[in-house]
């Protein structure tokens, strides 16, 4: 289905969501209005439109400009390979509903975003650090992260 068809269906079901300002080049990027919409939108993409594969979850630090993190989700429709991206802005100490109920593969990716950025996910079964060592405090990928001297320095 073409991008315009997706947008049309989106306007019909989720009036508050629309195309994102900055499009990822080559991929239709939508913007969810709020966290409450996120799970419903993801479920709608999976069940109704057939984007049943969660490709990526990541976050971008825009705290300096907009005091918010921008979460980026990407869904694929197997086997055609068509993609749709979804963006969600969440304020700095914020939390977002977890997608693990809809897509089990969101589990570790959300843990990674929590570990590296500090964004909490409500409803996640086991939200704890995954990549950074246990003694590390803070969230390294934030732009305002200052490395505190630890026992290896």
């Amino acid at each position, binding site marked *: 289905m073409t991008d315009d068809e997706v947008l049309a269906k989106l306007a019909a079901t989720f009036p508050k969501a629309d195309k994102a300002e900055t499009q990822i*080049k080559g991929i239709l990027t939508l913007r969810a209005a709020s966290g409450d919409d996120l799970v419903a939108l993801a479920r709608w993409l999976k069940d109704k439109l057939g984007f049943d594969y969660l*490709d990526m979850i990541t976050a*971008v630090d825009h705290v300096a400009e907009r005091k918010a993190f921008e979460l980026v989700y990407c869904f694929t429709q197997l*086997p*055609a*390979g068509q993609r749709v991206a979804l963006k969600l802005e969440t304020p700095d100490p914020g939390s977002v509903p977890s997608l693990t109920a809809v*897509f089990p593969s969101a589990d570790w990716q959300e843990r990674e975003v929590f570990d590296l950025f500090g964004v909490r996910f409500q409803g996640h079964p086991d939200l704890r650090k995954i*990549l950074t060592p246990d003694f590390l405090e803070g969230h390294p990928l934030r732009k305002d992260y200052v490395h505190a001297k630890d026992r290896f320095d």
Partner: protein
Amino acid sequence: MPELLASPPLPSDRMFINLGPQHPSTHGVLRVGLTVEGEFIVKAEPDVGYLHRGIEKLCESRTYPQCVVLADRLDYVSAMTNELPFCLAAETLLGVEAPERAQDLRVIVCELNRIASHLLFFGTYGIDLGAFTPFLHAFREREMVLDLFEALCGGRLTYNYIRIGGVMKDLPEGWGDLCRRFLTHLGERLPEYDELLSFNPIFLDRTREVGLLDRRAAVSWGMTGPNLRASGVDYDLRKAAPYCGYGKVAFDTAVGKRGSCWDRYYCRVREMAQSARIVEQALGGLAAGPVMAKVPKVLKPPPGEAYAHVEASRGELGVYMVSDGGASPARVHVRAPSFLNLQVLGELLVGARIADVVAILGSVDIVLGECDR
């Protein structure tokens, strides 16, 4: 978290065993906490992060070409396929396209690297299950591929060959013939590997009924690459959304039926033969021309976002790059296939025997460098 370091309080008939981080078969530094009852596993918790080097953070303070150097170190077993999505993303941001000859060369080196990576998988999977000889045979062939790469760009493990805008340099004299000789040699060896390991009754016995993953589970757990295809999903990025020169070559995808360890293993063995086919065709249809497009010395792409993905040896490797107009990217995220493939272990290992852990873990074929970044 402290509770991961000590054994949790357990009822008396269960034992907590740590598989790793130092263990001959965990393919890198991985720790899997197994709660076993006798010989059967009741709970499995993979613990990653031992090899986390902060590559994504490092990229934010490096220029774009320097990021490509870091990309080599992700999946160090098949480094060329790591550089490619970085370069494709940067090229999308810049709005340049590599010349056709460079695209063909990229296809050749990526497929050769896929062969090398699958040879390593084949060898180490044999060792995990106790067959020592296939490992050395596979490394003999892998040595030839590494020799080819060394002649091409000077590196054996990390290459820095695929650059933003094209490739580093053209093929040296006689490289094509040497490559063809290697491909003929590989074609003769692959049936030997089948005879030695793939259809060995003991090997079949240990992998055929183990680690079954059906279509729905594979898709919902985010598996990609041979793991996904072994479960019956015919999704190969080189065919679904051809990039570089893949539109010009013809090849088959290896699709399994049941999603057992053997299916995942055999998909990779078949992929080696298909990769050889691709390289043969690409060598024959090599376009003439330059190998590097005109890119400015200091790369400052206009603000934007790009998400490039390739079919790497382990699955779908994606690089999401955000540029704010400066010489360094504002954010680079690597969507690592091993990271997502490893999640399925928590479900796949429950109910398996300790002896099967190694078989299942080996068949998922992870590289911790890519998983932990």
